[in-house]
């Protein structure tokens, strides 16, 4: 027979003002099974908790109901108190008569009646509660970082310096991300490579970091503390253990005109290449699509079309036969840092709903370029060795027009968000331009200048006041080639006049978008993403670097448009979160997870299809002789988040959410209705 104790809290005046707590305690005390029912000013205070403990001990309670505030507020407090008195903590529940009652009602009589109802409901539930044990799972103290841009690099270094083992997976041949392409960085104009490359080398040399460049995450299984990750090592066609990065193969390569991805197609590279001289690791990759050897093979030629790199390599490192390899790694936490790419400006758009800017001539007018291309033109390591020369004829542009918000803040083009960094980098570009071409004219078309950040507004002011950038508020309707110049037709909305500029070059500050394929990766990791493809944080204010999947964290521009300081801050925050996780030997999880009754389960796997966390697994049921009887669903308690969707779906009622079983819920409903 149940022996339930009920504790009604006044919460000072918070509940007491509208609810007659003494009457609640009195009425509830009359219910069958309730052996103790009292009210008290502050149940969460030490004397309040002492009341509960004392009653458990003296009256031998089998369940406790605290009628007070929301369980979000104090469920832990009271469960701990119950536990302290020797009762299983999960036999203690709360009835919320504050947020759900006193705070929202005025009529004292009616509110008191409602409070009685609410308490009675929970009493009926607690009568059916069973003791549950906290789930403990071991933690694998290694972390996986996906993406080797500045965010991934920072996260990996912080984690490794904090004592954790790190696997850093980068899909390109080198780490560095977009920051390695930048010339100088706002707001201080320090050289991007100068501050980045030492960190890249640090990653390479760190004893606790395993750098896996030219690799991709193929599959992820498991749950927080215990992920099993399958990583695909793409075939480099170069034996990493033999190569010493001498570069002889690249000199020997006969294919020299592949547009360089690193130089944003403004420069050329060979078919066997490292993306840039400071690449980490400094090991080349054969681009099989362009390599003469592989093209010959593909055409079915019997004799090898080429092999110059192999001949040139003194260490025999070239390996045409190499194939993709798969490696599995066990990790306890994952940091996603896959960064961004720029909005594709032309007609071909990667997603429905996105519309390009055909009217700006990008892709058809050679002197219309995007921001990253400008960075490469301004970079000392770029295709023009840092001289600002326009792509069409190599002349020094005397007039450059910069267009802000190309794609961003334009719902008609499919993107309504602000890309946040463009105002800053356009100001930077005007400065870099004027520092290189002193008599150059820089005109910026803008909607607003958004320069919130330490030293940021000052920076954009400097562009105008010291470096003479001309800012025109308004949009541009068309950009086209007119003989030697690029015509820009726009409108100055402050003067109310049309503007026509004969520019030598036009730079488009295009929106930042998440990387292609991010959706697939997010699905592999079971993390949610917004309609643009940016990874969702668990809470926009309070949990900015966690995702909705426990143990998976997010950093940098894959979560939203971010500049370098933001990306680095997020990365350090994510690393701190992971290190916090790794400071436990065992992880404790609430036992309110789903459990399958294998005897009842018919193996229809509806639950598997609806589970948002991928927690449902298949389990074989065998008889004593080992014959397979059936395959049933089984919930992995480490992955289950206790949402209850499976329970609602199961046609045979064979899956139950512990602590929220059908029996308990029906008892609550009955207590209210009968």
């Amino acid at each position: 027979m149940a022996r339930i104790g009920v504790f009604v809290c006044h919460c000072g005046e918070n509940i007491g003002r509208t609810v007659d707590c003494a009457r609640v305690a009195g009425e509830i005390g009359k219910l069958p099974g309730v052996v103790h029912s009292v009210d008290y000013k502050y149940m969460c205070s030490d004397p309040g908790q002492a009341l509960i403990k004392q009653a458990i001990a003296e009256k031998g309670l089998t369940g406790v109901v605290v009628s007070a505030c929301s369980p979000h507020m104090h469920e832990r407090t009271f469960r701990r108190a119950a536990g302290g008195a020797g009762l299983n903590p999960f036999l203690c529940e709360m009835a919320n008569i504050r947020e759900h009652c006193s705070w929202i009602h005025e009529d004292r009589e009616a509110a008191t009646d409602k409070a009685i109802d609410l308490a009675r409901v929970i009493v009926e539930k607690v009568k059916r509660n069973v003791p549950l044990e906290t789930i403990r799972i071991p933690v694998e103290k290694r972390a996986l970082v996906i993406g080797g841009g500045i965010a991934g690099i920072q996260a990996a270094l912080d984690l490794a310096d904090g004592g954790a083992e790190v696997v850093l997976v980068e899909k390109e041949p080198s780490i560095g991300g977009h920051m390695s392409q930048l010339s100088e960085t706002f707001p201080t104009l320090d050289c991007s490579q100068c501050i980045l490359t030492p960190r890249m080398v640090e990653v390479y040399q760190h004893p606790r970091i395993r750098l896996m460049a030219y690799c991709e995450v193929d599959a992820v299984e498991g749950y927080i503390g215990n992920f099993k990750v399958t990583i695909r090592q793409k075939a480099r066609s170069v034996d990493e253990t033999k190569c010493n990065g001498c570069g002889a193969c690249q000199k020997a390569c006969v294919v020299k005109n592949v547009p360089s991805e690193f130089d944003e197609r403004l420069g050329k590279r060979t078919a066997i290449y490292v993306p840039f001289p400071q690449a980490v690791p400094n090991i080349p990759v054969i681009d099989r699509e362009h390599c003469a050897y592989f093209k010959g093979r593909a055409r079915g030629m019997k004799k090898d079309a080429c092999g110059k790199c192999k001949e040139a390599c003194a260490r025999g490192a070239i390996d045409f036969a190499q194939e993709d390899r798969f490696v599995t790694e066990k990790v306890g936490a994952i940091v996603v840092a896959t960064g961004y790419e720029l909005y594709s400006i032309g007609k071909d758009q990667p997603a429905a709903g996105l519309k390009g800017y055909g009217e700006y001539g990008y892709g058809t007018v050679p002197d219309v370029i995007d921001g990253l291309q400008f960075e490469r033109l301004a970079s000392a390591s770029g295709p023009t060795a840092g001289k600002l020369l326009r792509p069409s004829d190599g002349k020094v542009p005397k007039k450059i027009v910069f267009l802000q918000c190309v794609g961003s803040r334009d719902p008609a083009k499919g993107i309504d968000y602000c890309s946040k960094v463009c105002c800053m980098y356009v100001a930077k570009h005007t400065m870099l331009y004027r520092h290189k071409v002193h008599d150059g004219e820089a005109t910026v078309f803008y909607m607003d200048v958004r320069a919130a950040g330490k030293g940021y507004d000052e920076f954009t002011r400097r562009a105008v006041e010291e470096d003479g950038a001309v800012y025109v508020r308004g949009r541009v309707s068309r950009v086209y080639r007119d003989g030697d110049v690029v015509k820009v037709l726009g409108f100055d909305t402050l003067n109310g006049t049309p503007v026509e500029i004969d520019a030598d070059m036009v730079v488009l500050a295009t929106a930042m978008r998440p990387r292609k394929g991010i959706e697939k990766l997010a699905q592999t990791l079971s993390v949610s993403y917004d309609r643009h493809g940016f990874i969702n944080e668990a809470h926009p204010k309070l949990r900015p670097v966690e995702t909705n999947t426990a143990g998976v964290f997010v950093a940098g521009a894959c979560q939203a448009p971010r500049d370098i300081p933001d990306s680095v801050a997020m990365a350090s925050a994510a690393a701190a979160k992971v290190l916090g996780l790794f400071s436990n030997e065992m992880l404790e999880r609430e036992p309110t997870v789903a459990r399958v009754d294998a005897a009842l389960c018919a193996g229809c796997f509806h639950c598997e299809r609806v589970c948002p966390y991928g927690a449902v697994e298949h389990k074989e049921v065998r008889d004593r002789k080992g014959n397979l009887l059936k395959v049933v669903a089984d919930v992995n308690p480490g992955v289950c988040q206790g949402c209850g969707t499976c329970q609602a779906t199961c046609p045979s009622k064979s899956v139950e959410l512990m602590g929220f079983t059908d029996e308990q819920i029906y008892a609550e409903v009955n207590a209210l209705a009968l």
Partner: protein
Amino acid sequence: MRVGYYPGCSLHGTARELDESLRAVAPPLGLELVEVNDWSCCGATSAHATSHLLSVALPARNLALAEEQGHDQLLAPCAACYNRLASARHAVACDAALAETIEDVLGRPFPSTVAPRNLVEVLRARLDLLRERAVRPLTGLKVACYYGCLLVRPSEVCSFDDPEDPVSMEEVVTATGATPVAWRRRLDCCGGAFSVARTGSVVRLSRAILDDARSAGADAIAVACPMCHSNLDFRQKALVRRGEAELPVLYLSELVGLALGLDAETLGLGRHFVDTKALVERALASKPGPAAKPGPRPSAPAAAAKPASPAAAGTEAV
């Protein structure tokens, strides 16, 4: 396919050749045009400048009639009519209170099931038939496709093509065997309804359009709007400078008709102010094309013809 037909006032007046040519090309393109019974003014120009309610109620009445008469699409060849019909439908879809008012005003339910279609949209949906039946491909003819302002904008109302960089007219022109030229003023304003009130502005704007088309090497301009046609064709005498050749301005349906082998008179080509004779003769002189069998797609210069556009992929079946 049976389509509701809403000629509007222009097609019964200044733009009769648009009406004639469209009725002529409809059968070979598998279209049955059924004129909506008892149609009234669409509210262009004056209504929407004076009363918001009227500007929605007038087109709504016509859409409601089409609905009653069993249509699910309503072809409005005049760009202004099309724009009014589409704008009204959009306004009603976005504003439940307005939708109620409109039903009151109309005195009949208005579930708004009829989709307004424009000339370009309807022709573009029949490119395969057009290519197949173009017995007289307009090979070598260079055409500047002029969209004007009402056909593709505002984008949330006229979502059938990219509002800033449309391709649909070029696609139709390419299917006639002619070659669309790349030019810049495809979307500029011709002066529209200011033709009478501020002729000076119209002359300035339309001249810029003509100049640009000419310098892009066009032999003719293709339009899909009676207002544009009147400004560019009727006023052209006043626009051209001494010694400059005139540039024929053809409705898209007339070009299509020529390619389909229809004769100039049926297509109303004699009604133009700028002589179209030379152009028609050129068309007649062209070699008969691969009639009746679906020939390969005529190839067009990369700059002008952009066959597969995202906008094209996104449109509903017309």
